[in-house]
């Protein structure tokens, strides 16, 4: 038998509890969240579990095939998986028995210099994720500030929205490429090869992707500004900055959260695209896009080198997009009520 206290407790539903229960009904979003959590765990904790150094050159083990190559050894499958180094198979091209180059030391193979792909994938994932999150944060801050200012203060609205339109009219990918090409060396000298490129890429992705957020936020602020509670706040003499921080910001949280999730996805894609064009991070500081780019040269010998990083990017972006989709539904009060 339940006490009265517990019954009251059960009826007590918070906003975030409602959002969470609506979010759980979206199967794609839940699956996306699980996949994203697994990937995040893999790149964050992976290097502690898998001790191979991603930069260690083991030239004897260069171009090792992934362990899945064992599936094609016919009758020797079981032996191949238990003791991969002992297996020989008949190669019709070379007309002799050859050792199939697989090893449990490198489950998904190595590159042409013998660096372990699994370790590189984890290391690259850390960078890709970090770039995605940092660039998203930057674009979110810029977008929200510009959106709120343009929506709340009539004076700066025209100027800020013209600036937004101008940014939307810029051909972003070409400009990103140009800026990276031109400022890469300067920043590399100033902050070192890794930090310099990281700062540059985060900065330019953030600074070129805030426009959608700004537009949505401005629209919402314009609508909110006419509501009675803002009028009430103004009439008791609340200063503008407090109206914004107390009343406006909490009410525009849901579009900001949705554009934050989608922002991570676009930032990761943009970073990989830049790396894929050879203008992102240097080869000894891999990201998923860079690994994919390096792998395309060896696509005939080892397709696995492009499949794994590409799969990592695609799965991450797909799961983040599904989370965004579910979040949008969960945060929309019209849908949540049903």
């Amino acid at each position, binding site marked *: 038998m339940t006490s009265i206290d517990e019954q009251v407790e059960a009826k007590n539903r918070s906003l975030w509890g409602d959002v969470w229960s609506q979010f759980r009904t979206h199967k794609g979003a839940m699956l996306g969240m699980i996949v994203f959590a697994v990937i995040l765990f893999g790149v964050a904790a992976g290097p502690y579990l898998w001790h191979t150094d991603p930069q260690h050159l083991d030239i004897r083990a260069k171009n090792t095939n992934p362990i899945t190559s064992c599936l094609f050894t016919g009758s020797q499958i079981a032996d191949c998986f238990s003791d991969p180094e002992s297996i020989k198979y008949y190669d019709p091209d070379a007309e002799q028995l050859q050792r199939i180059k697989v090893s449990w030391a490198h489950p998904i193979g190595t590159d042409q210099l013998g660096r372990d792909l699994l370790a590189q994938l984890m290391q690259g994932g850390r960078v890709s994720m970090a770039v995605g999150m940092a660039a998203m944060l930057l674009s979110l801050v810029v977008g929200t500030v510009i959106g709120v200012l343009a929506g709340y203060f009539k004076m700066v609205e025209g100027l800020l929205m013209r600036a937004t339109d101008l940014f939307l*009219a810029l051909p972003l990918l070409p400009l990103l490429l140009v800026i990276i090409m031109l400022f890469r060396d300067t920043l590399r000298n100033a902050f070192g090869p890794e930090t310099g490129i990281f700062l540059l890429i985060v900065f330019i992705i953030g600074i070129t992707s805030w426009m959608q957020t700004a537009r949505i936020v401005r629209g919402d602020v314009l609508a909110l500004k006419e509501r009675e509670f803002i009028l009430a706040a103004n009439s008791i003499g609340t200063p503008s900055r407090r109206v914004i921080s107390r009343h406006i910001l909490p009410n525009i949280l849901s579009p900001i959260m949705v554009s934050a999730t989608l922002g991570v996805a676009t930032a990761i894609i943009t970073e990989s695209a830049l790396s894929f064009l050879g203008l992102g991070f240097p080869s000894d500081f891999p990201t998923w896009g860079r690994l994919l780019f390096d792998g395309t040269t060896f*696509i005939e010998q080892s397709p696995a080198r492009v499949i794994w990083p590409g799969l990592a990017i695609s799965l991450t972006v*797909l799961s983040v997009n599904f989370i965004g989709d579910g979040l949008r539904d969960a945060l929309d009060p019209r849908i949540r009520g049903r």
Partner: protein
Amino acid sequence: MLNYTLRRLMFTIPTLLFISFVIFLILDMAPNDPTGNLPMTIPPDVREKIRQSLGLDSPMYVRYLLWCKQFFINEPLNLIEQWFDVCFGDCGERLRVRSWATRSYVVDLIAERMPQTLWVVGMSYVVSIFIALPIGVISAYRQYSWFDQFGTFFSMIGFSVPTFFTGVMLIVIFSVWVPSDSIFWLPSVYDTTLEVTDLHSLWLQIRQMIMPVFVLALYNAAQLSRFMRASMLDNLSQDYVRTARAKGLKEKTVLLVHVLRNSMIPVVTVIALSVPQVFGGAIITEQIFRVNGLGQLLITGIQGADIPLVQTLTFIFAVLIVLFNLVADILYGLLDPRIRYD
């Protein structure tokens, strides 16, 4: 309507001038040297002369105004002269925008590369529309059916998986795993020198276009089918649909004549709006399949620090964006009689 169009066009000019100035400023801030790639044996005073001959010693605004003069006055005049075989004033001696790397005219370089890009990008656009419209219509008409679920998943994959991965995967499957004597084998490199003269060369041309076209088409179709579905759903619940059915019209007529035509209005503008994005996205696809189009020209220009080429190309991309924004707005007004810009 005409009034509105003219007003928008007038506003476009300062916007474009400002954008060209921004691009010029970014390129000018760059701390690199166009003579950096020349041999080290060139003595410093000769190097200085080369820089002077490139016009680098004059102040920034002079160079910008000169570029404006060359791009907005000299180049159009030149084009008119070429097309109509006439001559204004000092024809042939007019200063034109030259690429630093190849010393040829930038406009000629662009004209050389344009057909490949237009073929691949244009074709992918047509294909994507043919894929997206039926998917959008059916998934809206049968909302929450297995087809709709599948369509949603397909479009989610379509715009989540980046083109450089789909492209590379297609190469792995159709150029590496499929044996090269099979009919399903496709070339991974686009051969521009191929001339279509007979059926055999046409077949080769189609084969080499399949992969780049489908990579781009998949990406666009994913987004377009979503818009189509949403717009169909908006219209399907409207009163005029019930009226049409009550009149006893066939379901096919209701769907394809009444609802589809009205749903196309926002979709047409979305198609127009994303044309310039396709040119941007094509940079990556062209790089994967080695299509020597505009995107590849831009990449080689950037790598060679060929400022006039990069400046002109980036500006042309900007013009495309501004122009198609305008086209989308005007189309919206033309197609939807409820919208009037007055």
